[in-house]
């Protein structure tokens, strides 16, 4: 099984690091697939993007235009947005680096919200677990990603499928 992760450009990625962490490929944002903050930037019509944002209306309109994936800045359930994602075959990306960067109650609360979002979404859309790390310290190995996905509510087989098959769909040749 081949595993994939998606990180920001600020990470220092090498082939050695990919192999060490057990990934076939660590996808770097803006090298093939773009990661765009749709709260601050207008959607420019490009389809190979992961749209990040809080505003469900802006995200919904981008989803209807055919973007590849959405990552919610606040993991709250918006039924309209999930329905639009289901209709357009859009992937939901859950960023694991968020739970690594917080501590205590804030982290616990975030895990709870991600769990609710995952439980609601998994039957409707493909849920992708990626780190979306901004630095190497927020990255982790494939087996850590599987365990974090299980902590959020995925079972072993879904966690593996998410990190392999679903994440592979984010892979776009430059």
């Amino acid at each position: 099984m081949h595993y994939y992760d998606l990180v920001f450009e600020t990470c220092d990625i090498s082939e050695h690091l990919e192999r060490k962490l057990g990934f076939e490929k660590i996808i770097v944002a803006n090298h093939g697939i773009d990661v765009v903050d749709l709260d601050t930037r207008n959607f420019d019509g490009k389809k190979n993007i992961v749209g990040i944002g809080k505003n469900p209306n802006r995200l919904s309109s981008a989803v209807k235009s055919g973007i590849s994936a959405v990552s919610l800045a606040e993991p709250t359930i918006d039924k309209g947005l999930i329905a639009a994602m289901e209709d357009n075959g859009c992937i939901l990306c859950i960023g694991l680096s968020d739970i690594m960067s917080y501590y205590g109650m804030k982290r616990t609360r975030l895990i709870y919200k991600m769990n609710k979002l995952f439980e609601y979404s998994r039957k409707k859309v493909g849920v992708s677990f990626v780190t979306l790390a901004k630095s190497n310290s927020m990255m982790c190995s494939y087996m850590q990603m599987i365990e974090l996905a299980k902590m959020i509510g995925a079972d072993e087989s879904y966690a593996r499928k998410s990190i392999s098959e679903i994440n592979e769909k984010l892979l776009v040749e430059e």
Partner: protein
Amino acid sequence: MKDKHRYILVESGVEISDNDIEDFSSGLYSGLMHCIGEANYHRVNPKIVNFVGRNRFIIKSSLSGSGFLIAALALLKRVNSKETYFYTLKTSGTIKALSSFEY
């Protein structure tokens, strides 16, 4: 009945010198206790069994608790007030298999 256990090869974001081994170990156990929780710590029962080079070590846990330990190592970003991170590189039932890990 004999307890089944798992060994995990871990890479640390900071170097661990010979003088720091005790401090590092106690700081790591305390951080893991925080991440895993007192109620579940005994299920994991982590113990560093070997240091490999300057920034790698092998940690032992119970077989059933190894998942908790792997997740906790991803969440743990500070040991003894020092910023760090932990990558779990390989798991095995024997130490020998981990000692020959190349990457």
